[in-house]
Every structure is written in C-alpha cells, then in structure tokens.
C-alpha cells in the first residue's frame, strides 16, 4: 500500500509545510513522489498545508495549491492567517445554521422512543413487538416523526433526530 507523503507528514508535525518542502527533503520513495505529482493532473504543481489547531483541540486543515503558487516566507505567513480567519468564518456560519435548524417541532415521548428503536435498525413489526403496540401505530409514529424532522426517508430522520438532540446513539 502506498501512503500519501503529505498525510504522513501531517501526522508528524503541526507546522505548515509545502509539497516542495517534502520533495526537497530527499527521503521520498518513487511511489510517494508520484502521489504528490498527481496534483499536476489538476493543475497544482505545489501546495501549502496549513494545520489549524482549533480551540476545541482538534486539527483543521487549509490547503491552498496551484500551478505556480507564491510560497515565499511572507506569502506563507499571510496564507496561515487567511486560513485561520477562513476557518473561523466557516465555523460561525455552521453554528448559525445549527442554531436555525435546532428550531424544529419537538417529538413526543412516544415518537422519540420509536425513533430510538428505528436507529438501532429494527423494523416496524419488531418495534411494535418490543413496545407492545400494533405495527400500524408504530408506522404512524415514524411518519409523524419524519414530518416533524422534515425527512423523506427514515434513515435521514434518524440522522436529523440525532443532530437535533432528540435521540442519541
């Protein structure tokens, strides 16, 4: 199996580096070199990998690339700042969207209970058996939940229910 040398390097360090930095280190084998060179097929001869340590402790990545990118020290410093501001802007947009979405019609206790079982992969018949209800009643609860969660499919309803905190895994 061939490993992307960029990914290998990202596991090793949190300091930004360019593809050319890796190439000029001289310790890449032939298949690793060809993986980086694959970028050329997409018009990218060199790229800059900027790990961003997020306040929650995870690592985000900003990776500009191009045919002849300016990667002088000043440009690298500027790109890093741009990456951090961009990451922050995207995070704020995601939070705004999450907040907007969490305003939904809440599920009843029964609907939540049924959806919790749907999340484990049980069929309506099985759920009816577990909860001592008729199968049509279970289906009815699932349909109501789908409507409230604005979901066309029950699998998507499960995803929405988890995201909105109605059920958990």
């Amino acid at each position, binding site marked *: 199996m061939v490993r992307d040398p960029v990914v290998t390097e990202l596991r090793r360090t949190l300091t930004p580096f360019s593809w050319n930095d890796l190439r000029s280190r001289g310790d890449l084998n032939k298949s690793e070199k060809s993986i980086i060179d694959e970028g050329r097929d997409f018009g990218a001869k060199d790229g800059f990998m900027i790990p961003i340590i997020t306040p*929650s402790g995870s690592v985000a990545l900003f990776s500009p690339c191009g045919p002849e990118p300016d990667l002088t020290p000043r440009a690298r*410093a500027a790109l*890093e*700042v741009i990456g*951090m501001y961009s990451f*922050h802007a995207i995070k704020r947009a995601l*939070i705004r969207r*999450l907040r907007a979405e969490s305003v939904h019609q809440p599920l009843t206790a029964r609907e939540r209970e049924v959806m919790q079982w749907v999340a484990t992969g049980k069929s309506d018949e099985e759920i009816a058996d577990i909860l001592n209800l008729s199968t049509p009643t279970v289906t009815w609860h699932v349909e109501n939940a789908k409507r409230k969660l604005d979901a066309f499919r029950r699998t998507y309803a499960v995803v929405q229910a988890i995201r909105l905190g109605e059920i958990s895994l």
Partner: protein
Amino acid sequence: MIRVLSGKQRDAYPDLFDQHFRLRYDVFVKGRGWSLPAADGLEIDQYDDSDAIYFLDVSEEDRIQGSIRITPTVKSSLIADYFPHLIENGQPARSSSIYECTRYIVQPPRKTRGDNRAAKSRIIGAMLEWCLDHRLTYLQTIIDSVALPTYLDLTAQTIPLGLPHPYGGGRKTPGGGDCMAIRWPVTQEVLDDIRNYGAPAEADPLLAHVAAAPPPAEFVH
C-alpha cells in the same frame, strides 16, 4: 473576584503585587523560558510603572488565579519598542486612547473547558469594561500566531495588524514560535462577545457536538 489596581497602588497592596510578580515569574520565566528581568523570583519590567493598570482575578482564598496588565502606548509600548516589524502598514500606535495588553495569565483551579472559558471571559471582560469606561478606542497585544483561533473565538473582531514573524528562533526551536500583533476595538459589541464566550456550553450547540477533549494549552505571554 476581579480586582483592578494601578501601578500607583503598589505600595498600598504589597502582598498582592508580590504574589502577582511571582506568578508572572513562574509562568513566563520558569514556565515559558522567556529571558525577562527577574530578580529574586519576581518578574518586573520597565512597563510596570505608575501608569500600568492590573486586573487580578483573586479567589476567595486570596490566590491570584488570573491576571492581565494594560499600559498606555503614548510614550512607549512593547510593540513600538521591540516589535515594530509586526505592524504591516503605518507605525506602531502612540495614542492616549490605545492601550497595550500584556502578561496575560489564566489559571482557574479546575481546568475544565467550562471553567477555563468562564475565567477567560471574566478577566478579559473586566479589562474591556474598564477600557470602555475610560473611553479607549483600541486594545493592542502580541499573540502567538498559532493561538489566533482562540482569540477569534473570544470575538470575531480580532483585527490583525500585520503578518506573523518568528520569535525565539522560530517554530523549529523549542520555546520559539511565530507571533503577530492584533487589536480589539473597545466597544460594547466586543464586550458582549466576550461575555457570551463565558456563557455555559449548553448555549452553544456546536460545543455540545464536539467530543469532550482536554482544554488546549493556554497560549499566554
């Protein structure tokens, strides 16, 4: 509780200031390995004069668990005196309405994410509030550039004054890194941002989604 003291009050509160200068020694000289003037285990520099304002987060047991210092920029400042290259356009600020913030320490007794955020919000909020009351326009400071996301989290109105530049030998040297100058407008909006930052996690749905991780190391100077 946050105590606000000026450099003029050093003789009036000798124990508190002693504790403050010793804490600075522990955090910056011993902890970060910075070469600062440090006689007798006290870290005191030329900006600790009568014009300096200190914000001290003092616990019920009279332990200082957080502190920041702000100083006027009219005559001198860390940025103007030692780091002018961090200002990309124009000159380092020299203005009666712009203060510089330095020696930021936050050490709550319990290091949970919630307590950390609350402690940061408390002391930085107190500082912003004082600046707002005194009609300042901006607060400037130097940060480790890797910590920029943390400052953006406090308020989106974190304004970069220039590009990051290496200090202490740069990132490949232990104890070194990249630093940059930023500033915050002194406005009610920014103060509100900082107060919201300290609000409990349930108010932030994205935080609730993030797996519980230990708080990142504090980037302070």
